[in-house]
């Protein structure tokens, strides 16, 4: 069993969201990664959840007693990593 993450631990570093805020979102009705994301912004920052997603999943599993599949992940989105609008707009460097 994974270790319990204390409420004051920063889980999403990009958006500065703590484990306690994630638990509050779950109490409000979040059941999966995207539900937590919409209620807290965890996973919406520069890294797009690459760092915190596994921790958010762990908290969801522990709080709701559900398995990895039910917890889900965030929707994969273009671009894979930050890219300038110039590059996306077709500018040649």
């Amino acid at each position, binding site marked *: 069993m994974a270790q319990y993450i204390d409420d004051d631990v920063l889980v999403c570093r990009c*958006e500065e969201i703590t484990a306690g805020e994630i638990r509050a979102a779950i109490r*409000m*009705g*979040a*059941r*999966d990664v*995207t*539900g937590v994301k*919409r*209620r807290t*912004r965890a996973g*919406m*920052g*520069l890294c*797009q959840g690459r760092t915190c997603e596994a921790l958010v999943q762990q908290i969801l599993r522990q709080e709701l007693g559900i398995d990895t599949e039910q917890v889900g992940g965030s*929707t994969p*989105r*273009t*671009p894979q990593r*930050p*890219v*300038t*609008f*110039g590059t*996306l*707009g*077709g*500018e040649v460097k």
Partner: protein
Amino acid sequence: MNSYDVVVIGAGVIGTSCAYHLVKKGYKVALVDRGDIASGTSSHCDAAAMITDKMPGADAALGHASIQRFIQLAKELDYDFNFEQRGSLYVCETDMEMEVGSGYVKALQAEGYPVKMVDPYEMLQIEPFLAKDLKGGFWSDECSQLNPFKLCFAFVEQFKNKGLDVYTYTTVTGIKLNEKNAVEAVQTDKGDLVTKRVINCGGVWAKHIGELSGLDIPVLPRKGVILLSETTSPICGQKVQEFGYMVTKFANVECDRDPELLKYNVAFTLEPTEGDNIMLGSSRNFVGYGLNTEIEVINAIAKRGIRFFPVLKNMSCIRAYAGVRPFMEDHLPIMSEVDEMPGYYIAAGHEGDGISMAPITGELMSQLIAGEKTTLEMEPFRFSRLKQAQAPVI
């Protein structure tokens, strides 16, 4: 068995607003959604409530009344949805856009809405990062921004378990009617909800919910792609759009457009978010319910963004996302009872204005159900107008 005064189907911004306004009037309400709150169009959109993207007439009247309702809701709801009335700027790239745009501004002014023309100098004072070769534009103090998911949560949280029961992850399987064709219950995969009144707030899926009862609700999914920047220091103060946006939204606004932009129906629109990102849009296409973000569309949106805000060139995009908007042929939502099915109501088809018009929609639907005088004349939004439009000409 659970029984309710009203069952609302769809926990997007329209459904949550209807549910809130009904509980406020004292009704016992169930809110049902097959997924989570705000898990469809209402979380795949932008975040503005505007008057300057509405057509003069019924459309603008709805937009204006909704902003007035937003101002009250910001005080009335305990959960902060980050409402701010910052105004909005429209910019014109060509002389033709200036001509069509100024006619549009005059029409809005004639109806009493606060919109004014601004010259290129004033535009640059408002937005110093704007391209310097634009012809002019218009400004309205009334336009506002907010966080759309938080708005849905705010509507739900206010009365949750205090008049409002939330049935998320619950799929509606049918509407039970009695021998007089009147609503008796909403059937779901978790059991029946007994009620005499149901509102279909299914947005782009309102059509499918309607089909369960043999109703033809002609809402079509129209996809829009939006790009989101990294967090930045502010490069814009509020919503900025090109007038060409109106051309992509309404078929009756005619202006010459670059064929490449027309291909994906792309127009420049920019807004700052409460998380200090910049939202850059957008496109409008009929390509079904899929949420793919095609690279050609992303390319066209980025290019168009840089045309109006050259500073974007070196800023990073962190994600692209798409949502499907509930499109109606005549650009007016359905907010109506269904004459042939007593107790069945529809509030759907707001296209890209669902967030903008949610407050007034909830208010009007609650008034309609209570049999009260409505804030606005409901005739333009009646469901029966669509049947008349489809009727064969003899």
